[in-house]
Each structure stands twice: as C-alpha cells, then as structure tokens.
C-alpha cells in the first residue's frame, strides 16, 4: 500500500468509527439529529444524481419525499402493512410519480425545470392539505407505527439511528455504483452538454427520465424512513422550503461529490436542528449563510473535501522527504 492509499484508508476508517460509535457516546438529542442527517442524506444523494450528474436541477424533491412518507404511513395506518413492505411500496410509488413528472418535464431544462418542479411541489402539497379523505389533510397522519425487526420494535433513537445508517450505506453504495456504471457516464455527459451527449450516442431522453426516477425513489425511501421515525407527518413537512433545504445541501456539497454532499447535509441539518429554539435569528443566519456561501464558494465544499486525503498524503510525504534529506 502506498502512503496516500494508507492515509485514505485510515481517513475512511476514522469516519466510519465515528459514525458507528457516535450513538453510544452522544446524548439522545444528538442521536435524534443523527437520524435526521442519515435520512436527509438519502434524499440529497438522489438529488445529487439528478442535479450534479444529470444536470437537471429540481426544487421538487420534497414532493417525492412526501409521497414516500404518505404512502408508507397510510398503508401502515389503514391496512396494517408492515414497515418493510411499506418502504418498498413508498419507493415504487415515488418512482412512478418521478416517471410521471419526468416524462413531460423533458421538454424544459434549466430555470424552466426549476419552476416546473416548484409548481409540482406546490400542487402535491395542496393535494396533501386538501384531500382530507385520503391524506387526513391538515390534521396530518398520526400514530404511525415504528418498524418491527422480527419481534423487536425499532423505536428508540439509538436503534433507529443504526437502521437509518444501514439504509444510508445501502443507498450510498447504490449511488456510487450507478455513478461508475455506463449510465453514470451518460448522466455526466448530459450535464456537460446535452447536444454533445446526443451526438455521441447517449439516449438523452431515456437517461434524463431514469435520473428523475432514481432521484424520486431515493426521496421516497427517505420519506418512509422519516414517517416511521417521527410517527406523525403533516403536509407542512413536505413544503417548498424542504425542497429548498435539500437543494441547498446538494449544491453546497458540490453535487458531484458524494462526500461533499454528505458533509453538507451533516452540517446544515445538524446546525438547523440544533439551533431550532432561536427560530427567527437562526433563519436569518441560515439565509446569510446561503447568500454568502454561494457568493464565496459557488462550487460547494466538494472540491475542497476531495483534496483532504491528498493534502494529508502530501503532508506525510513532505515529512518523509525531509527525513531523507537530513540523513
């Protein structure tokens, strides 16, 4: 193993160790935030595939997140469907919704796509709010049962944290696999130049729809995880500002950098949840952060983060070369 590989491995081992040991050492409130971070990360990764790789910016991720949450929650409440089947159903329904949205919105891109997805988010929210017979409207869905693992109920923050982390790991691996597959290269080609991509034989229409469906499925799973964790969902949990939050996390992460997106989700979810009690002031700070962050770091933290293992490696190498010189 070379030095840079070794530092890279130890870097990842350190991060993994912190993630696994965190709930044993941290107080309950922080574990609670950790669950949110893991759930949000799944939705943000989906958005990263769509936005960073396929170049389609969406402000409608909360709609799919909500569709997943409502599907799984309503199945559990009305038909006693267990969590695991509800989760699959949430993924499927969100994916179909993504397909239904993805196909017609192919005609628009860039800012027009942003606007279309905002409209879709608003319509889905209005539906959740007003179709009281299906979604219970502004009452929200109450008493969503926690998942069962065999005969064990996963309801404590600590156990749910591990469940959410397992799902996050699964979707992280899936995301990375997709990115390294042929499809991933199609997506990247699309975001660089749609015209050029179509000239080298990329089926741009199909790739875009697939990216949309993938991002919706990721959001749907995150939504189901959220619903069964908090046990109560309300249409306002899936409003436009949630979409804005997801997009912010993805963009600050650098969209193409998976590690960057995870770190941005950690920082933004962590800080906003932790500072919840000081409401307005927190939001003013958050707004300023968005503004100045975008002005001074338009490409997010991804590019910096990718250089950390390399920087550590360089540091070691500088030391060892110094040793050689002095000897």
């Amino acid at each position: 193993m070379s030095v840079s590989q070794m530092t890279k491995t130890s870097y990842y081992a350190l991060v993994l160790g912190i993630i696994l040991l965190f709930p044993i050492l941290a107080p309950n409130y922080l574990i609670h935030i950790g669950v949110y971070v893991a759930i949000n990360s799944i939705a943000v990764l989906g958005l990263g595939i769509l936005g960073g790789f396929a170049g389609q910016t969406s402000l409608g991720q909360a709609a799919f997140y909500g569709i997943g949450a409502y599907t799984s929650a309503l199945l559990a409440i009305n038909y006693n469907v267990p969590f695991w089947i509800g989760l699959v159903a949430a993924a499927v329904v969100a994916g179909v919704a993504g397909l239904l949205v993805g196909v017609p919105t192919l005609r628009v891109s860039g800012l027009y796509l942003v606007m279309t997805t905002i409209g879709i988010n608003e319509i889905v929210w209005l539906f959740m709010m007003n179709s009281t017979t299906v979604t219970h409207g502004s009452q929200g869905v109450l008493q969503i049962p926690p998942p069962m693992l065999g005969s064990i109920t996963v309801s404590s923050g600590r156990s749910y944290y591990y469940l959410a982390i397992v799902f996050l790991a699964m979707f992280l691996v899936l995301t990375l696999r997709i990115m390294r597959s042929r499809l991933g290269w199609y997506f990247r080609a699309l975001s660089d130049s749609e015209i050029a991509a179509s000239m080298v034989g990329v089926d741009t229409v199909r790739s875009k729809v697939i990216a949309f469906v993938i991002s919706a499925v990721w959001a749907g799973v995150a939504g189901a995880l959220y619903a069964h964790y908090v046990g109560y969902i309300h249409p306002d949990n899936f409003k436009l500002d949630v979409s804005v939050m997801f997009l912010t996390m993805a963009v600050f992460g650098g969209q193409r950098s998976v590690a960057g997106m995870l770190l941005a989700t950690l920082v933004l979810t962590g800080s906003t949840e932790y500072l919840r009690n000081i409401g307005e002031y927190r939001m003013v700070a958050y707004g300023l952060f968005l503004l100045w962050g975008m002005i001074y770091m338009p490409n997010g933290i991804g590019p910096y983060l990718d250089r950390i293992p390399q920087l550590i490696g360089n540091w070691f190498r500088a030391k060892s070369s110094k040793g050689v010189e002095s000897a």
Partner: protein
Amino acid sequence: MLPQLLAQGIATGAVYALVGLGFTLVFRTLNQVIFSQGHVFMAGSFLGYAIVSRLHLGPIAAILLITAAGFLFGVVLDRLAFRKLYDADHMTFVIATIGVGIVLQNGIRIVYPEPVKFPPVFGTELYNFGGARIAEPYFWVVGVALLLVIALHLFFTYTRQGRALRAVAADRVVASTMGINVNLSIRMTFAISVTVAAIGGLLIGPLYYASFDMGEMVGLKAFSAAIIGGINSVPGTILGGVILGVLENLSAGYISSDYKDAVAFAILIAMLLVRPHGLLGRVRPTKV
C-alpha cells in the same frame, strides 16, 4: 357574482403583474430568476406600513414616498447582496437569492411577529358597478399599476438611461464597448425591480393584513404570471398577471377556494410544457 370576481381578479392580477415585472426586468438583463422578489414585495409592504402608520399622508404622497424608499432599499440590497452575483451561474443565483428572501422574511418576523393592519390610506368607500361592489383601494391598485407600466414603457423607450438598460439586456459586452456603464445599469435594474415590488406591497396593504409570510405565495404567483405572459416581455407579464388573477378568483368562486392556488400552478406547468417562452415572449434560440 361574476363582475365582482372579475374586478377582484383584475386587482389581484395587477399586484402579480407589478411583482412579476421585477422578475421580468432582472431576467431580461441578467438571464436569471430572482427568487427573493416575493419577499422583497413583503418587505416593501412593511416599509409602506412603517411610513403610513407614522406619517399621516394622503395616497399620492404615500406612493411617492414608497417609490423613493423602495428605490433606496433596492440600492442597499444590491450593495449588500446582488452586486457579487452579476456573473454567477443559475444555481448560485437561485440559492443566493433564496437566502436573501429567508433573511428578509425572518428579519421582518423579528420586528413584526403578528400580522399588521394598515391605516386606510386609499379610502374605504364602496362603489357599485353593474352588480359588483368594489372598494376604493382596488381602483388605486389597478390605476397605479397602469400608470407604472406606462411610466416604465416611456422610460425604456425615450430616456437615455432606459435605452442603456435595454442595450445591456440585449448584449452586455457590446453595450460596454458603446460606453454604457454596465454595472450601473444592472444596479438600476435591481433597484427598479425592488421599487415596483415595494409599490405593490403598499397598494395591497390596506386590502389585506400584512404579514411576514405573505411573500412566498405572491412571489410564486408573480413568477407564474411572468412565465405565462413571457418572461422577457413587459406587456406579457402584465397580461399574464391579469389572466392569472382573474382565473384564480373565478376558480375560487366557482370551483373551490382550497384549490385556487393549484389552478395557478397547473396553468404554470401547462404553459411551461407547451409554450415555455410564454404568450408574448420571444424564443431565444440555443447557441451550440
């Protein structure tokens, strides 16, 4: 019922058009969508409230004062926020202006946590028009909107500065070689877009309560109005605003008020999918 709904629709539409004009002006100049526009409208409404609740002014003096204050507010916003974003890419601009909106909304929320009631600046009388009872403020809304549009049109067509703004909108580089101060023109564009939104905020104040969370919906509707009419066309935005306002009020009256917002967004999506450049907008060909 129909004349009543139509009249209200036109007044609502006039406000959408005023706020939407800000979107159109910025889009024409920078090819960007300014997502803080709805919250600027809300902040303008509170600025108007601060003025009319302290000074007892007549309607015309109030409008003139809010025009000056709005322009100043626009210059300040440009200095603090927009100036660094003249060359930003789409996503950066969208998120940064969303950030500006969040700051405005919550900054106002700290000062005015409860909805505030405006003093009746624009009168309270009701007029009868073929079965419709229309309150005096509605006339002010529509009248001022019309005057503003005419004034803007004259400004863009006949004044040197207005023509410079159009030149910058058409091609920034060429405009700068012609001796136009491009940065000053962009600053003017932002200031004007904030001013029209602030005037809209003052006009709507006496009709509804002003509250810190009213900006988001109006901003989205105004943007929809701009898209429906054609986002790079000023008359298109006015037309889009009126169409949206009327359809929204009709659907609230005849279908269901719960879904009146859904109607607006359904029209928006249909328009984006069928004719993304809007009713009166021009198509911009893609350069390869």
